[in-house]
């Protein structure tokens, strides 16, 4: 299925890092599905197909063997799975949930996943969002839809079972991915990150 012509909105960017403090990288082509349906109805199919029945609490995630189920709303979950496995999973879910009120949409190319790691990663994020991202408030496994910079996105702290090696993942709509990438670099300047120039050529500074 892999096609060499497939390009991410961030294909021109490569990992930026300031050593231990913070690293920003893209998790390109990470599979993402939106699954709507009553949690009780979809849990058996989820357990069968992803290895987890989904998180029990709001604003949490559950992961197993590289497949994660994120709580997005009372009847809405995101499935985050390894690249190129999402199409098959969507098909399997649809057939497994036949007769159950649900819908599955592949949003792999709609959202871009940007990963943040490092001892100062939360401080970089904290400059861009009103949500409390301190590790004490936003623990491993937590999910939060919130405002990030001038855009809206979903913040996630992937647990071990997700097989993702970033401390924080930010899901942002693809058209805003480059904006957020450069904004993260700007937010990380305090910790030694080098600035990135937006594709559009705009120049801005975070107020400080």
């Amino acid at each position, binding site marked *: 299925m892999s096609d060499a012509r497939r390009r991410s909105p961030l294909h021109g960017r490569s990992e930026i890092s300031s050593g231990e403090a913070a690293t920003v990288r893209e998790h390109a082509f990470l599979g993402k599905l939106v699954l709507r349906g009553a949690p009780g109805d979809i849990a058996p199919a989820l357990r069968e197909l992803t290895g987890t029945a989904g998180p029990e609490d*709001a*604003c949490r995630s559950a992961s197993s063997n590289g497949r994660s189920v994120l709580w*997005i*709303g*009372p009847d*809405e979950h995101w499935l985050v799975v390894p690249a190129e496995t999402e199409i098959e999973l969507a098909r399997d879910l649809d057939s497994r949930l036949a007769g159950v009120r649900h819908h599955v949409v592949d949003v792999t190319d709609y959202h871009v996943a940007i990963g943040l790691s490092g001892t100062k990663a939360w401080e970089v994020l904290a400059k861009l969002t*009103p*949500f409390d991202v301190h590790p004490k408030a936003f623990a491993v496994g937590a999910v*939060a*839809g*919130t*405002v990030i910079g001038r855009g*809206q996105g979903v913040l996630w702290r992937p647990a071990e079972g997700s097989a993702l090696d970033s401390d924080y993942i930010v899901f942002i709509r693809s058209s805003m991915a480059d904006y957020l990438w450069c904004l993260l670099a700007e937010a990380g300047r305090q910790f030694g990150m080098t600035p990135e120039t937006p594709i559009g050529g705009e120049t801005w500074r975070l107020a400080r």
Partner: protein
Amino acid sequence: MFVITCPYCGERDQAEFVSGGQAHRTRPLNAHEMSDADWGDWVFMRDNPKGIFAERWFHSAGCRRWFNALRNTATDQFLAFYPMGEAPPAVEAVLPATPAGEAPIGSGNDAVKVMRPGESEGTTT
């Protein structure tokens, strides 16, 4: 800025929400029989009380769900949050409705300002 409690996500910053205006408005079923004035009232006119007001809020950046809230419009204090389709819960609000003790009409209207004990003419709060 203030903190709003989404019934699904918990306490979040106001920046994540969109206000949906007055709650519990029911679209008239006899629109074809209504006069222009009555229809205009339904479309354009909203209550604007000073005090407890039931309104709809949308957690647009979070779980993207609508819910209702009771807010004291004079103090911006939220008194209750409840799901769409439910009747507003009874709440006990402490009046006067504003911290500065203005009259129960208008806002900052000094011409009708209520003087509180110990407050003298010309004092600004």
